């Protein structure tokens, strides 16, 4: 462990690492970290993180309790995949940063970190269409800014460390309430070692016109990123939050295990959009859930590209009458990847509606699984759910599974479920090639056609980004 000093973000000399790939996020620069919790996990690791952040005693207590829960809980390998057993928690680095205080302008961000984000196009996107940006580099945000006009409306957009320090009265009220520490082994791990992530509060009636964006970047090898995001939209408020993620391709595995909690109070709307493009060595084990109160709406748009194994099932608890929940999910599993994704809808009030549309694409040896839960108890009436799962297979070795668990009790509720599996055949690819498209272009076009009706519902910037990522992914899958 690195001794804790008062130096905040000492700039380091940068030297690019060899093997930089122009494609996607597969590049990394050498960075000197001022704070390093070392390798492996123990109570000391947790104490180190907490003291670096100068946290209140209740938070340290919360963390230590969570660590115990983590050790006690078994690995959930029996139902999804044995691959989780390959994670060695003692070989992971749990905290790396150059400092705790994110910069408010890009000029202040240390060069070695800034050039990473510039290469990913973040400052440019911010200028073009975002209301605020938080850019996390390993454990902490290197940059965080919100446009004045949005801040003046009382919108809070900071990282979780700052949220805990500056706004404990709001934070504490909602923190860990949507996803309790013991929800699953990885939510417990996150609760013990969390760092970074966003804290957003939108005051009553405020509608944030442009999206807020967070970008999560893993730069270090053998690293675990554990951001914690909490978004609260007060009564009648509206906000769109987008997150992007990348990491370079190291030969060893990396762990990303976030917890994201959303609270939409009466009549509020939250839209949470993820476009992740993890390298294929990343275990991506994320717990995401929102609570929608009366007349509120929570919509998850979840695009999973890359990673070695993703297990992620965004959920909505429909707590108040007429609340609406929606999950639109796209997963692309290429060679050596397993996308185990889906959705959870828990109806807990009358006249609540939920909609799940999941599309998965399996390429080569890639495997995708849809796992869904829809729960409507007997005492409720007027609840509706629609679930659609479509799978596309590219070549014969791909595998796809669908496990929809829909439990609807009583006769005053309605559900419908549709599933389809289609295939990109050799003849279809040949047809497109005979028009002059390369094999990769043909596959990419087939995939884009498959997700087209869903992608059209995304904000324009994100459907463009998604298309670009699919093009890159297909490029790489042609031998």
């Amino acid at each position, binding site marked *: 462990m690195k001794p804790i000093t008062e130096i905040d973000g000492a700039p380091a000399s940068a030297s690019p690492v060899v093997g930089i790939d122009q494609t996607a996020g597969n590049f990394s620069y050498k960075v000197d970290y001022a704070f390093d919790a070392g390798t492996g996990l123990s109570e000391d690791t947790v104490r180190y993180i907490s003291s670096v952040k100068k946290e209140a005693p209740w938070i340290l207590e919360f963390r230590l309790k969570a660590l115990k829960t983590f050790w006690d809980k078994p690995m959930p390998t029996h139902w999804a995949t044995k691959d989780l057993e390959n994670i060695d928690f003692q070989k992971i680095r749990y905290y790396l940063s150059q400092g705790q205080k994110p910069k408010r302008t890009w000029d202040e961000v240390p060069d070695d970190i800034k050039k990473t984000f510039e290469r990913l196009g973040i400052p440019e996107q911010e200028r073009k269409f975002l209301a605020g940006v938080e850019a996390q580099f390993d454990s902490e945000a290197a940059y965080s800014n919100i446009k004045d006009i949005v801040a003046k409306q009382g919108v809070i957009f900071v990282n979780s460390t700052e949220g805990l320090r500056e706004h404990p009265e709001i934070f504490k009220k909602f923190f860990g309430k949507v996803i309790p520490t013991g929800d699953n082994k990885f939510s417990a791990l996150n609760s013990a070692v969390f760092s970074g992530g966003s804290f957003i509060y939108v005051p009553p009636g405020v509608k944030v016109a442009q999206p807020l964006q967070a970008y999560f970047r893993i730069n270090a090898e053998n690293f675990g990123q554990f951001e914690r995001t909490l978004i609260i939209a007060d009564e009648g408020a509206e906000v769109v939050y987008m997150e992007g993620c990348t990491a370079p391709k190291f030969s060893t595995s990396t762990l990303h295990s976030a917890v994201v909690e959303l609270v939409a109070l009466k009549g509020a709307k939250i839209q949470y959009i993820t476009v992740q493009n993890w390298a294929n060595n990343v275990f991506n084990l994320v717990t995401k859930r929102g609570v929608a109160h009366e007349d509120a709406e929570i919509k998850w748009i979840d695009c999973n590209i890359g990673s070695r194994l993703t297990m992620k099932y965004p959920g909505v608890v429909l707590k108040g009458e007429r609340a609406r929940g929606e999950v639109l999910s796209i997963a692309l599993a290429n060679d050596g990847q397993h996308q185990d994704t889906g959705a959870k809808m828990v109806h807990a009030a009358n006249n609540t509606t939920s909609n799940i549309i999941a599309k998965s694409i399996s390429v080569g040896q890639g495997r995708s699984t849809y796992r869904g839960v829809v729960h409507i108890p007997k005492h409720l009436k007027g609840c509706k759910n629609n679930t659609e799962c479509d799978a596309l297979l590219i070549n014969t070795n791909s595998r796809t599974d669908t496990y929809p668990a829909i439990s609807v009790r009583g006769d005053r509720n309605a559900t419908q479920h549709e599933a389809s599996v*289609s295939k990109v*055949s*050799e*003849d*279809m690819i*040949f*047809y*497109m*090639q*005979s*028009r*002059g*498209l*390369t*094999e990769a*272009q*043909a596959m990419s*076009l*087939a995939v*884009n*056609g*498959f*997700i*087209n*009706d869903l992608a059209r519902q995304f904000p324009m910037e994100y459907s463009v980004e998604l298309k670009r990522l699919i093009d890159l992914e297909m490029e790489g899958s042609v031998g």
Partner: protein
Amino acid sequence: MSLLEIKNLHISIGDKAIVKGFNLTIKPGEVHAIMGPNGTGKSTLAKAIAGHPSYTITEGDVLLGGKSILAMQPDERARSGLFLAFQYPSEIPGVSIANFLRAAVQARMAEGEELDASGYYKKLYSKMDLLKIDRKFTSRAVNDGFSGGEKKRCEILQMAMLEPHFALMDETDSGLDIDALRIVADGVNTLRSGPLGILLITHYQRLLDYIVPDFVHVMYDGRIVKSGNKSLALELEAKGYDWVKQEFAAANA
């Protein structure tokens, strides 16, 4: 002068020889009809020339403008000016005809060169007007839920847009009623005025009433056994393919 030369072509599927020594040279502007009974290798010939991976060329060569295309991927052949109009075109759900053709046009441009969208649509609409195709057609997904006639019109529209030097038209008349056949034939005749060379594969003489070929070749057992002009097609219609089979058997006896 740009020629399509097929020289002593032998094609196999797996271990089975299908085409056995096919020879033909097509000049720009010429329409050659290939007729013959089922299973004689007509469609195999078209698909193999276009580069379908299931077909193996065991002997011979195909030259486009004097250059062998056999080492090229199907998309390289297409970009070199070859077009295959499919007997059974594939459906591409979610991809509109306009976007598909746009991707195909873009694929023909140099790297980094950007397609001029307004110019593209102008050209697309003028080709559609030429072929009397409704504007709404191109917003539909490629062949998805199309009738037989719509699929063939979609093929002709693609051919018009991509402006190939040579088109291989595989059983373009199959599955069409007489009205649809006339519409498709009109389309082909419209495109015929230029330097486009066409290899027209058909089972029936019916199509040749609408698209009048310069040459007619009869294919049997994997090669051309008889060549002539338009009247050969009529003779075949009258006598049937048994006549060819008998003649072939006698010659090989």
